[in-house]
């Protein structure tokens, strides 16, 4: 590759001399520095309080009876034997759930069909593991025993498992009122797609499957509920990313005022989108606690989590690129069939919509048509999994870019460079109507090549070991974050009389390190030590409303809400301090626990002293309300669009087909970074999940709708030995999407890694005369591809055109 040689030379030169302008801004205060996490001590010493760890007096234990069929008529439930155990307190079936509503699905709209979703199966089972009955016992082991004794009479029905088959008129209907199981159909077009295609020099077509995977947080789900019959207050502890929404939905379902419901999200062992939706178990456990007047807890087993926790991805994708022979993309047609599962949940509709909207990635193309079919199948509903819709978009376009390069005999990086949105075109309006406010893919890619030297490294490997198979894969990614405006994040900052700063935030962090990053923001703003700032979250009593922790949005939204609240506090304290210092409030500086004016820095007053004064109305300037508490609800005007370039070198063992990633490099533009230690950690974990999907993970249903790998022995999460080292660095273009200038980091790795890895494996197989494959790239699949190619030994020059992913 000519470009490889050029890059080696330019890369070596770049290593020697420093770039003229720094690619990343230097931090001024604590924001931007790798502060070690303040939340770690208790987690390191076994003092975390996860759902299972919360003690409740008089606690009862729940177990669910779940359907062993994907589709069946529920004929009869006999709980006599279960009730006969002396440890059994109650068995509930659908008939017993008096006065509780159904779980919400989407709202009716043109082309959008809602479905009814009962808490416990009423007449028809629609997915394997759907809850049929709830058993309450005095002991968790006894609850499992009793659940096994519940005798359920099912009449098995033919399920529909494959989303493409589901669209056939002859297929069974998951819900009788939805013909062809198409719950949502959406077609969008921008520009003049037909003339882009008719005037092009060729069309590349690629069909792929983005397989269903399980988010598999290490802590499965769980719910506990306690009801005070006297006050009719209900307290729910739930593994949820969205406590306030759960409160609202429970209020509607249980017909209790929101004022009577408290939702607490305790420490949470990961979520990755699986803990966003409200689940049948939330309703059922709350109902049981109210009925029995005693606290009830349900802890999900891993098998249940695989069966009944939402899955992510699940798309059959087709893309057509109208192109010129120099590699320029002129038009795009994309068709997505999304495997929504058994109910019209909002996730099953909104997530693939995002895929359609982001399908052009970082490329400058305006003539675009997308078509989405959200299809119901007899599987657990689809919902978010880290990236939610954007990894699927990135996978599709990044594979297609490689396929186009392969078809035209061009360097995949050259094809990308030809199509990147030039930095001069930002802010850039995409075909789907989003405004990318900033970004520079060319800079990210060139920085990646310079810093990683992957082109020369893979060539060296191939030269040194000519008998071994190496591959190099890239992806140049973007995504949409900072969802708003209808999902405001909230925060409050207060200062006690003693000068302690208390921060409360909405949503619910579960590994992201919000305690630390939010404290950094407040520390800079108020000029106090991080040690004097505390943070509370995960309890609906703390704030009137907030939306969820998801979608790489916490730094941008919660961070901004925290910053604005801190600024309000500062402004009020400035007025008080100005009176005490006899100075102008706008001149005051807050630094190291002191407040002073730049003009007279020798006259100072302690932060604590001003805080105390705020609680004494007699000391306050006239008209100023006493105490220090400020609240902000922040809804951003625009989304943010982080982007970047990733590269991975893999080796394939031709004897076994095993793929081994050797090294992974990433350069991301995520705007300003609050804490690089935490940000890099997010990338590491994201890459691991992206790698998992590329190489290891897939929920495998057979034709009868049985899940064949419902445990961590068969469903392989990446382990230490599967992961390469990840080298991460950054470029930075300025975003005005929020005043912090952050773009979001949580999903970057997951989005970028999957196509980079598959492109790398294809590169390795291409070198050996292989062919395009589907995910996950298990050794057997890779080995078969290698061996079939070595038998036929045909040219693969046009192999990419019309590829089908075999999944």
């Amino acid at each position, binding site marked *: 590759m000519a470009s490889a040689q050029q890059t080696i030379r330019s890369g070596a030169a770049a290593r020697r001399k420093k770039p003229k302008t720094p690619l990343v801004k230097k931090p001024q205060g604590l924001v931007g520095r790798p502060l070690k996490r303040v939340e770690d001590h208790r987690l390191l010493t076994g003092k975390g309080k996860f759902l299972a760890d919360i003690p409740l007096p008089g606690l009862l234990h729940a177990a669910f009876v779940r359907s062993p069929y994907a589709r069946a008529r529920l004929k009869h439930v006999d709980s006599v034997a279960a009730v006969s155990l002396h440890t059994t307190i109650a068995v509930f079936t659908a008939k017993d759930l008096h006065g509780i509503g159904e779980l919400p699905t989407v709202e009716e709209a043109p082309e959008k069909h809602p479905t009814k979703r009962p808490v416990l199966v009423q007449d028809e089972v629609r997915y394997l593991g759907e809850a049929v009955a709830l058993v309450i016992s005095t002991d968790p082991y006894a609850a499992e025993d009793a659940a096994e004794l519940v005798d359920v009479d099912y009449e098995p029905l033919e399920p529909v498992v494959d989303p493409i088959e589901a669209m056939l008129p002859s297929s069974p209907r998951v819900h009788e009122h939805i013909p062809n199981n198409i719950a949502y159909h959406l077609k969008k077009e921008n520009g003049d797609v037909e003339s882009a295609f008719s005037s092009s020099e060729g069309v590349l077509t690629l069909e792929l499957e983005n397989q269903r995977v399980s988010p598999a947080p290490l802590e499965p789900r769980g719910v506990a509920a306690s009801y005070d019959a006297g006050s009719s207050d209900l307290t729910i502890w739930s593994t949820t990313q969205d406590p306030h929404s759960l409160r609202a939905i429970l209020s509607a379902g249980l017909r209790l005022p929101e004022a009577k419901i408290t939702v607490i999200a305790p420490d949470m062992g990961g979520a990755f989108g699986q803990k966003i939706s409200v689940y049948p178990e939330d309703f059922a456990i709350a109902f049981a606690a109210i009925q029995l007047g005693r606290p009830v807890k349900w802890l999900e087993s891993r098998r249940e989590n695989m069966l009944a926790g939402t899955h992510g991805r699940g798309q059959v994708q087709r893309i057509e690129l109208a192109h010129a022979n120099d590699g320029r993309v002129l038009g795009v047609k994309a068709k997505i069939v999304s495997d929504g599962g058994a109910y019209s949940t909002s996730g099953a509709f909104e997530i693939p919509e995002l895929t359609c909207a982001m399908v052009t990635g970082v490329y400058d193309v305006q003539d675009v048509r997308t078509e989405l079919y959200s299809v119901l199948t007899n599987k657990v509903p689809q919902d978010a999994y880290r990236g939610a819709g954007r990894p699927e978009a990135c996978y599709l376009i990044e594979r297609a870019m490689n396929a186009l390069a392969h078809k035209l005999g061009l360097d995949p990086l050259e094809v990308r460079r030809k199509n990147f949105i030039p930095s001069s075109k930002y802010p850039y309006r995409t075909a789907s109507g989003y405004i990318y406010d900033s970004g520079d893919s060319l800079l990210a890619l060139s920085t990646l090549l310079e810093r990683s030297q992957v082109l020369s490294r893979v060539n060296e490997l191939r030269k040194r070991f000519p008998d071994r198979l190496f591959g190099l894969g890239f992806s140049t990614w973007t995504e949409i974050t900072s969802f708003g405006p209808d999902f405001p994040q909230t925060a409050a900052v207060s200062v006690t009389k003693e000068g302690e700063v208390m921060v409360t935030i909405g949503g619910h962090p579960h590994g992201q390190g919000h305690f630390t990053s939010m404290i950094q923001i407040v520390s800079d703003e108020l000029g106090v030590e991080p040690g004097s700032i505390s943070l509370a979250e995960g309890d609906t009593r703390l704030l009137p409303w907030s939306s969820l922790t998801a979608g790489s949005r916490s730094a941008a939204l919660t961070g901004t809400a925290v910053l604005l609240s801190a600024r309000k506090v500062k402004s009020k304290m400035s007025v008080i301090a100005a009176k005490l210092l006899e100075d102008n409030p706008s001149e005051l500086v807050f630094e190291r626990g002191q407040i002073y004016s730049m003009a007279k820095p020798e006259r100072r007053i302690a932060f604590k002293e001003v805080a105390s004064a705020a609680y004494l109305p007699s000391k306050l300037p006239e008209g100023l309300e006493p105490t220090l508490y400020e609240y902000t609800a922040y809804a951003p005007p625009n989304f943010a669009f982080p982007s970047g370039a990733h590269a991975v070198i893999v080796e394939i063992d031709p004897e076994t087909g095993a793929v081994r990633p050797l090294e992974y490099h990433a350069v991301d533009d995520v705007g300003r970074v609050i804490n690089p230690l935490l940000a890099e950690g997010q990338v*590491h974990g994201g890459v691991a999940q992206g790698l998992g999907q590329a190489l290891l993970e897939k929920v495998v249903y057979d034709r009868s709708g049985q899940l064949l790998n419902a445990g961590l022995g068969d469903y392989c999460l990446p382990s*230490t030995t599967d992961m390469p080292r990840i080298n991460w660095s950054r470029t930075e273009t300025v975003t005005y999407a929020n005043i912090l200038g952050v773009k979001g980091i949580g999903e970057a790795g997951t989005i970028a890694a999957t196509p980079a890895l598959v492109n790398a494996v294809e590169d390795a197989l291409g070198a050996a005369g292989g062919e395009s494959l589907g995910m996950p790239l298990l050794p057997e699949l890779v080995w078969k591809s290698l061996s079939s190619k070595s038998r036929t030994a045909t040219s693969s020059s046009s192999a990419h055109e019309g590829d089908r992913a075999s999944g």
Partner: protein
Amino acid sequence: MRKVNLRINGKDYAAEIEPRLLLVTFIRDIAGLTGTHIGCDTSNCGACTVTMDGKSVKSCTVLAAQAEGKEITTIEGLANGEELHPIQKAFWEHHGLQCGYCTPGMIMQALWYLKLNPSPTEQEVRESLSGNLCRCTGYQNIVDSILAAAEYMRKGNQTR
């Protein structure tokens, strides 16, 4: 029911238990030491790792009755008051945890492994952890934490 005596973190716990009771349930529900977590029920994830007579075991795969007379150490038994064990300290310094759910199991596995091999290579550390799953960190910082901990422990310097 059967009476057993278990010694956990140097303290004795006596209880009447069902023979089927798992060690992890005893540790969590009877001894009240909830730092040991359950992640999979099938001994794949390692969140429940503790040491039994100094050797790491997955406590979801040991019956409480089998642990009678053995010395069990859990994550709660590591720190010396407020002073973190070098492995805990290294996890903090190297951002070796995010959600913290796998962390106690990772640390207990490392505790055993570093006794066996006080100067491991990165690859050896990775192999020693292949039975402990983490969904947050991509493992890099966990591996780096354990390599750093090995160095602290070799130097015998537990305070800095």
